[in-house]
């Protein structure tokens, strides 16, 4: 599956934080030493596996043709043929996806939480479907079923990215809405004379701002990393450009572009995960735990 396909992994991340570590109080010193040695090997191997390719990629992008250190590739990147067009397209798609996704998912999630809690299970199942049906199957169906005028527009991709982002966006909003006392807030707002729209805009939205932010950032990371649909729908977004450019040229530019994409995505996702954690910590503190 494409990036961000980790089956709602964000929530499992926060679960890890809440778990207590088992302490084996009766372990003898002998076994402890044995364990430590075993653990060291596992951690060293894992560390090597995850860090060496990263190091290799970064080193490769910081080389010139003779193999000496240089920023040449990063200097040339903005002027490379097709790069700025691809970047513009990716940005446009990202903005459209984020707007549509927010307008669609936020009111739905809030409404279901406040008025139709019995529908939450249905929504849970529906929003997980994009993980079960992979992008490659979705895109062949879309290209087979949709009329030419729809396929002629790049925004068909945005339309589908909203679907791909749904598991992450809904889970994020669901957790955000579950963490606040929605019933009290809504009732208070309604009894003070606020109508539905006002309640949503002035009361609920400010309270789920962290969830909204993490949903948006995840969508952004998804759009900038998605290759399957974009390449098969024949639109040159940034990832598609990187792959096609690497076939037509022999420089290190596409490695540099890929590394920048990687670092950018990395920073965004780390920001989301730590935001998530500080959010859940704040809730826990508020609940007096």
């Amino acid at each position, binding site marked *: 599956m*494409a990036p961000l396909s980790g089956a709602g992994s964000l929530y499992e991340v926060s679960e890890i934080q809440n778990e207590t570590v088992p302490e084996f109080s009766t372990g003898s010193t002998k076994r402890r030493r044995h364990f430590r040695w075993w653990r060291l090997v596992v951690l060293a191997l894992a560390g090597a596996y995850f860090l060496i390719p990263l190091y290799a990629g970064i080193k490769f992008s910081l080389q010139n043709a003779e193999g000496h250190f240089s920023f040449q590739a990063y200097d040339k990147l903005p002027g490379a043929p097709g790069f700025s067009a691809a970047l513009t397209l990716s940005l446009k798609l990202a903005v459209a996806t984020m707007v549509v996704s927010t307008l669609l998912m936020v009111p739905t999630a809030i409404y279901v939480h406040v008025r139709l809690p019995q529908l939450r299970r249905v929504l849970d199942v529906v929003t997980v479907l994009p993980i079960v049906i992979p992008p490659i199957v979705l895109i*062949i*169906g879309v290209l*087979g079923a949709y009329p030419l005028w729809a396929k002629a527009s790049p925004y068909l991709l945005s339309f589908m990215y909203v679907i791909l982002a749904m598991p992450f966006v809904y889970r994020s909003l669901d957790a955000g809405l579950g963490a606040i006392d929605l019933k009290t807030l809504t009732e208070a707002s309604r009894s003070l004379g606020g109508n539905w729209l006002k309640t949503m805009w002035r009361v609920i939205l400010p309270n789920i701002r962290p969830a909204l932010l993490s949903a948006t950032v995840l969508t952004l990371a998804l759009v900038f990393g998605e290759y399957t649909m974009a390449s098969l729908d024949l639109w040159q977004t940034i990832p598609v450009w990187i*792959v096609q450019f*690497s076939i037509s040229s022999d420089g290190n530019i596409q490695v540099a572009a890929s590394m920048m994409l990687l670092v950018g995505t990395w920073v965004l996702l780390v920001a989301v995960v730590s935001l998530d954690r500080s959010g859940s910590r704040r809730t826990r503190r508020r609940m007096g735990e």
Partner: protein
Amino acid sequence: MSKSEVAASDPGTSVPGSDATTGHPSSLLRRVLRKSEPAIAIAPFLIYTFLGLGVPSLAVIYYAFHGNKGGWTWHNIHLVTHGIFLIGFENSFKLGLISAIVPGILGVFLAYAIQTSNSNVLRRLTSTGAGVLANFGGINLTFMFLATLGSTGILTYWLRDVGINLANFGFTITTFSGVLFVYMYFQLPLMVLVITPALGGLRPSWREAAENMGASSWRYWRHVGIPVLMPSILGGMLLLFGSAFAAYATAASLTLGIIALSPIQIGNFLNGNVIAGQTHVGYAIALGMLVILSITMIFYSLVRKRASKWLR
């Protein structure tokens, strides 16, 4: 009690006078609106998901059973269950299976090593790192691993310096073995994410109880640890299977589309590399993938129910 319920459910008729405008057309309209409010509020979401998920899936099923001149046919299904397309399914299945079992087992060890390390920094680092890496498929992996294990890659040079030539072992990064190796980069973190909560569910008291009764470490794991963890491990492996079976971007960019895997074959079909008379075969491959993934997810939900028993 029953009276108030009736009143709440139908204020217009059973409590006359409570609504001063009863009977006026505007109130009728309002009542209809209020009755259908849930439907109106939920409609955009349902329509959107139908257009984005339902229509493509139905199209895949429809075209899989239709020839290029129209008309109902088993021809496409026959094609994909024989020859090169069957090999594609077999390879994809094998890829999914191996990259579920190997990272699945390694992931348990890794998660256990991290959990028992008593290092808060390490645990925090992994929980963030795993969350990022598990979401990390796509083309970046291709470039990272080409720079590592490609013909001019760093690790290739290092290994050559100590006299190891990986090609002699049948390993090249742009073939099946390479794809398998690269997939571990997101499979392993995914397994760590899935299994860590389950490891947290192993109570220290269980181990103490086992030791009090004279059980060795091996017997503890054999009779307590592994049976408790098994549903979670299996669930994790099913997730890994689905994720490797369906992945397209990394394999396509790494092998330039020449490897016989089902997703790649669909991609080639969409790129126009089709033999005459097989114009709808891509849909049949997609249908096959849908069926296999649905079965995987059914198993996953069954196993998960079982796993949650110990996770409280």
